[in-house]
């Protein structure tokens, strides 16, 4: 019973907070309402007995939204978020498309004869996930590792402003490096 009430409450909050992202006119509120939506979904995943994934969702998304808020403030310059002005294009089409998608998905969900549950959850879901990742699904884990590493490198390359020639001079011999702000290790 409590699970049901909790699930519905979380569901309502998750969807409303998600909608609020595109309604509120403050950058901080938009990003943190998305965070609230994620926290609700994370808790729902907890209710569905997948503790690790649920908690990790909360962990990752709160962090991401903290960063997201910074980017919003940084990049929205003459911002629509402080001044109420519409920053949308094709609002009506977008609305129509998304409502159509929702109706389509909902009909599918309700009409589809879902198969009965097969199998039972393992005793320790988290340990089972770990063994799966380190055993039969090792490839996934290896791929994820590589993708993450590539992402870090690609992100830095895309966003970096100054290369090593700016820091160390044309012959790469200048020590300490010429930085607008010296770092803590003194490289």
């Amino acid at each position, binding site marked *: 019973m409590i699970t049901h009430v909790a699930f519905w409450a979380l569901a309502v909050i998750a969807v409303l907070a998600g909608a609020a992202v595109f309604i509120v006119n403050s950058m*901080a*509120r938009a990003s943190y309402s998305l965070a609230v939506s994620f926290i609700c979904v994370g808790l729902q995943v907890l209710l569905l007995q997948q*503790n690790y994934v649920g*908690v990790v969702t909360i*962990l990752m998304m709160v962090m991401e939204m903290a960063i997201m808020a910074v980017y919003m403030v940084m990049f929205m310059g003459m911002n629509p978020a402080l001044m109420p002005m519409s920053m949308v294009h094709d609002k009506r089409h977008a609305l129509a498309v998304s409502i159509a998608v929702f109706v389509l998905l909902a009909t599918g969900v309700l009409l589809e004869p879902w198969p009965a549950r097969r199998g039972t959850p393992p005793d320790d879901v*988290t340990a089972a996930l770990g063994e799966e990742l380190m055993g039969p699904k090792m490839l996934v884990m290896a791929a994820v590792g590589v993708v993450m590493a590539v992402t870090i490198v690609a992100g830095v390359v895309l966003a970096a402003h100054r290369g090593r020639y700016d820091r160390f001079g044309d012959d790469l011999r200048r020590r300490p490096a010429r930085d607008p*702000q010296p*770092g*803590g*290790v003194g490289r």
Partner: protein
Amino acid sequence: MSDPSVRVVAPLWVLAAAGLLGLLVLAAAVLDGALSARAAGADVRTGLTRPIGEVARLMRQRRRVTVAADTLLWRVGGAGLLVMAMMIVTVVPLGDWTLFDLDVGVVWFNAMDVLAWAFVWLTGWGANSAYSLVGGYRFLAHGLGYELPLMFALVAPAVAASSLNVGTIAAAQQGLWFVVWMPVAFLVFCMGVLAIAVWGPFSPALGPDVAGGVSVELSGVDRLLFLSGRYALLAAGAAFAVPMFLGGGAGPLLPAWVWVLVKTLALLAVFVWLRRHLPAARPDLFMEVGWVVLLPAVLLQDLLVAGIALGRS
């Protein structure tokens, strides 16, 4: 799924846990007051009573209002730290009892400590004041430096005990505490606790150079909540370190729950003492240290721990 050595108590005991946390907060505040008074050459007794006077003063103080403040987010941020600390304490076993025997307790701690990013920044943002916003950004800059090392520091005990459950990790330290053979992870964990409490070296977000940073416009009850939230996070972090690194309730003579409290108080006292003793780690300097020094050091520690755990099994 859960360790048999830990019993889940009735939900109503949350109140007792909150009371205990409150006592720890008071102890930490009194100790800080006494240390400050001693350093200033004043009578130590004035320092002992100062926190209580401060509480009374803040309870009566009228709220300061700033222009175009985002009041909702401001209040959420200010009260959030205290909630975070409470959530952390729920998974810490006090001897045999725990409130919430979550099988991924370690990740839970991690998820809760990340909330500091949100709450501290929101407190800085909500006031709509330049200084407090600078403070908020300073905290995020620190966060980028300390969070990953902290995460990997949490990995070490989990790997050694091959469990993410806090009670199991505490039980796995029969004989040898984890702090002995994973000192780097322990130190980095303590640093992370100081950081989420915006304490000591990690207090530039509240620095005197920006007139108090995040807390500059906080007043009255909001300020009280924010400040006690910092102490509560210190206490909760110290309490969490006990089952993770300090052997949980292990100890001679006394019952397990007393040992947990003793160890928590000892670590909390060290944290409080460190504040006056260490200069601030400015975020622009610390970020590089976090990535270039701490992260590799913790990863090496993890590797070592994994090797030993593999050898033992």
